[in-house]
């Protein structure tokens, strides 16, 4: 077997709380230490302990953009994972499993979903197989998947020292062992594993020691038992630059710190909370001059308070944000409208998750698109900026404060659970690429203490110089009611019209000023006959898919939107008019972003490719869907259904 396109996909699964995340972390770091680029995708239930979770790690000698539907090595240490993930193992791939579990009956696994259980049972019956894990092994064998059984407990028990330990302690090490065994299978330099182990458990030398021992046993056992390697044998690469492995929550958190966000409010909600926790951990940080690097993180009583407190803070001149996910965002509708009419630069970081309602709290979806674009009664300008990958997420987290302040309007940074939990290796971020632009924020010296001030003065570009609360000479009244230039309430119809027009004008200006490359990007051949239209987290999958498609002779490009509001309608109209076949691709049911494009351009997307099972779109899915559409046999709406 070959390293397809230089990439190798590994997956570990298991019950929540049983060490899946640590295993993945270990694997990813060890790969990164060895110079590989790493991309991770994390899947888990809305549950603390016991339900099935898994982590896919894809590595390559080039930056990895997305994840694939299949995995080359499925690493397991429980019975459930092989049942659920068998189908995912690639042609020529491998399965690592706990030899002691082969007799575990399907019916005894309470966390397998009833539908999955039924389907599996039916399939076993059709193949005349027992309802045990052994059936999976047999099916894998039929598919020529190379099988690696490792009796974790026996291996440990066989060790003089470790064998003495209680079973509960031993059990906590099988995850580490599974990683070690994985490395044996891909012939990786084991010293990187040790480096990773130490890095992760720095403060717990005993843990390191014990796990290292157990890992060595698993590594040796596997080496001994595996026979000829069937998987690609990975050789470490040279790295000449420092790299980090970070996920989306961290990327955004870092961006906020860099962007000068000094107040973050939040109410806990998956998958947004980790960003706030990251900020709490870094509430004090080093700055170039002086010692005032700090951020106030305020846990509020609910999301209504979160948005309102963030606005209150923004009025004082602090860069203020709140971070939430879909249900929390629903509660911010009214607050956002207030910020809109009061021209307040407040940032909302929105991690969309599977909806509607509580929905699929730990799964991903892009189903709040139209909601974010239309949230709040009445009409007010808003910036909606969507990142497609973690690098964009970082830089956008800085930029969005600039936009919010320059156009004095609420700004939504649109992300999703996929991005929050995707992880990726990066070179160190380069802050010289970004600027802090505070727009028409007045300095004390530009104001006269005690004098009258019109916070909402009419200006041609709609942007009024802004004072902040407590500033001498900038005295202002803010009101959610329609108001005069000084902020006092007014129901005068003529003033009303002017204020509406003033506020709307800001977005016209924003569209002129924001660099095109921050508005949208046309990836791939600009003259391709087929154009994929999308925004947000599918970016990685789309980029790699169009590479594949173009390599295989299909001229396909990909129009990625970043700035959803104000929307570059004219540019989209022009680009799309050049294309023969427009395909909207997004992770929701109704193709919300495509509808947004249609509403503004009246250019029809001939096909929609959508996914709404809560699992992020993979490279393979995009490729297959586009080929299917190009073949002319696809329905108008193609639904992607990969996912476990």
């Amino acid at each position, binding site marked *: 077997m070959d390293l397809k396109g230089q990439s190798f996909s590994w997956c570990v699964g298991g019950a929540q709380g049983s060490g899946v995340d640590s295993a993945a972390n270990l694997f*990813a770091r060890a790969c*990164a*230490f060895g*110079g590989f680029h*790493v991309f991770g995708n994390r899947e888990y239930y809305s549950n603390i302990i016991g339900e099935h979770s898994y982590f896919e790690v894809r590595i390559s000698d080039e930056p990895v953009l997305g994840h694939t539907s299949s995995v080359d090595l499925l690493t397991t240490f429980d019975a459930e994972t092989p049942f659920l993930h068998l189908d995912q193992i690639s042609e020529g791939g491998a399965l690592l499993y706990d030899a002691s579990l082969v007799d575990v009956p399907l019916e005894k696994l309470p966390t397998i979903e009833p539908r999955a259980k039924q389907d599996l049972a039916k399939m076993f019956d059709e193949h005349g197989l027992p309802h045990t894990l052994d059936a999976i092994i047999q099916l894998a064998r039929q598919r020529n998947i190379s099988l690696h059984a490792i009796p974790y407990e026996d291996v440990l028990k066989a060790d003089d020292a470790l064998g003495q330990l209680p079973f509960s302690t031993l059990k906590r090490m099988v995850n580490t062992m599974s990683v070690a065994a994985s490395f044996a299978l891909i012939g990786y330099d084991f010293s990187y594993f040790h480096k990773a182990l130490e890095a992760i458990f720095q403060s717990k030398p005993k843990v390191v020691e014990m796990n290292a021992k157990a890992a060595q046993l698993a590594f040796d056992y596997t080496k001994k038992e595996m026979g000829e390697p069937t998987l690609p044998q990975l050789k470490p690469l040279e790295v000449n*630059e*420092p790299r*980090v492995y970070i996920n989306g929550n*961290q990327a955004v958190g*870092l961006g906020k*710190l860099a*962007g*000068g966000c000094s*107040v973050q*409010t939040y109410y806990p909600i998956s998958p947004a909370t980790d960003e706030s926790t990251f900020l709490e951990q*870094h509430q004090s*940080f*080093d700055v170039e*001059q002086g010692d*005032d*690097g*700090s951020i*106030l993180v*305020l846990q*509020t*009583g*609910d999301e*209504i*308070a979160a948005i309102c*407190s963030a*606005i*209150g*803070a*923004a*009025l*004082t*001149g*602090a*860069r*203020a944000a709140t971070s939430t996910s879909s249900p929390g965002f629903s509660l911010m509708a*009214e*607050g956002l409208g207030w910020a809109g009419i009061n021209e307040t630069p407040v940032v909302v970081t929105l991690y969309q998750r599977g909806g509607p309602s509580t929905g699929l709290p730990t799964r991903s979806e892009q189903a709040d698109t139209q909601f974010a674009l239309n949230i709040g009664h009445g009409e007010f300008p808003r910036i909606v900026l969507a990142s497609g990958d973690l690098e964009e997420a970082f830089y956008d987290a800085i930029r969005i404060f600039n936009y919010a302040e320059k156009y004095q309007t609420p700004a939504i940074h649109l992300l999703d659970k996929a991005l929050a939990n995707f992880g990726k290796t990066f070179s*160190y971020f380069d*802050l*010289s690429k970004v*600027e*802090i*632009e505070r727009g028409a924020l007045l300095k004390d010296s530009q104001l006269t203490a005690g004098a009258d001030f019109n916070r909402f003065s009419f200006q041609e570009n709609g942007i009024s110089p802004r004072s902040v*609360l*407590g*500033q*001498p000479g900038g*005295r*202002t*009244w*803010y*009101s*959610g009611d329609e108001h005069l230039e000084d902020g*006092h*309430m007014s129901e005068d119809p003529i003033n009303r019209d002017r204020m509406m027009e003033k506020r709307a004008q800001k977005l016209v200006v924003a569209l002129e000023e924001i660099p095109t490359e921050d508005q949208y990007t046309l990836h791939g051949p600009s003259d391709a006959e087929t154009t994929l239209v999308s925004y947000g987290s599918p970016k990685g999958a789309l980029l790699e898919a169009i590479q594949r498609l173009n390599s295989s002779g299909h001229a396909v490009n990909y129009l990625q939107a970043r700035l959803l509001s104000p929307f570059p309608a004219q540019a989209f109209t022009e680009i799309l008019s050049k294309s023969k076949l427009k395909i909207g691709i997004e992770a929701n049911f109704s193709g919300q972003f495509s509808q947004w494009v249609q509403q503004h351009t009246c250019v029809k997307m001939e096909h929609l490719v959508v996914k709404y099972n809560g699992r992020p779109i993979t490279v393979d899915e995009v490729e297959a869907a586009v080929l299917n559409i190009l073949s002319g046999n696809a329905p108008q709406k193609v639904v992607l259904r990969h996912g476990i």
Partner: protein
Amino acid sequence: MAFNVADYKTSVHNNWCPGCGDFGILNAIQMSLMDMQLDPERVTVFSGVGCSSKTPHYINTYGVHTLHGRVLPFATGGKLANPEMTVLAVGGDGDGLGIGAGHFVATGRLNLDITYIMFNNGVYGLTKGQASPTLHLGQQTKSLPNPNIIHEINPLILALSSGYTFIARGYAYDVAQLKALIRQGIEHPGLSFIDILQPCPTYNNINTRDWFGGADRKGEDGKAMPRVYKLDPNLYDPLISAETTDEEIHQKIAAFFAKATEWGDQIPSGVLLQNLTQSTYEERVIESLPKYKKNPPAKRQIESDNKPVLKINTILDELRVA
């Protein structure tokens, strides 16, 4: 530079109903600010939505007229970002105890240094007189088609349970007392709550100025015997300080409770509780984030020549993998 009371007034036309209790409260706020000689530009008055919440437009400080029920979270964000500002929060009983009840409780827990002044008129004034959370069970004011079937809430007791460390009651027509109470509230280091009995002549025809003033209760001398009376400092000591013993605290709470539940013919006013033993939120922040004291969020420098000042590599090093 001395500020006079006119410095706290705007020229905006006040459109409250003639005789509305809100006027007295407005005056008292303005007078207390003057009394304290607070620079109007260093003060922000936040409000919710309702008749009473129009107040900021009439006060010549910074004013933030927010959303119905949301005055406290807005004020919280403003105060924490710029703790040097004097922050008042004002609004109606519907605003604070109806739609805003959740924030009323949550903010109590913070004990941050703001003063919350509630205009308590028993009705939702601006929406034309529906029962507010303080209207007593069974009462039927002018615009109700049926008697109120929802039990009233006692704002003072709710404030106590929520953690407010200064709790007082005033009366809209006793501007002198009110002025003093508001000043004490502002000077109190922590979250102050002032419940103000505010006649709404338009919709509340039960708890009227006459009723509070006892016009229906003539004493032997033929004079009205007001229902609202002032707590006697010799008989009622609202202070809880570091010296107060647990035993005394229990007694004080019981006394508070007794006073707070008085209603009908005897309605106490004055300071009902002042607890100096609780740290403020600002102090607690400083404990874990000492930088906050000198450089609160509104004052932090975030750029230098338009470049971010964060030393990002320090953090990246923590996350380094190669």
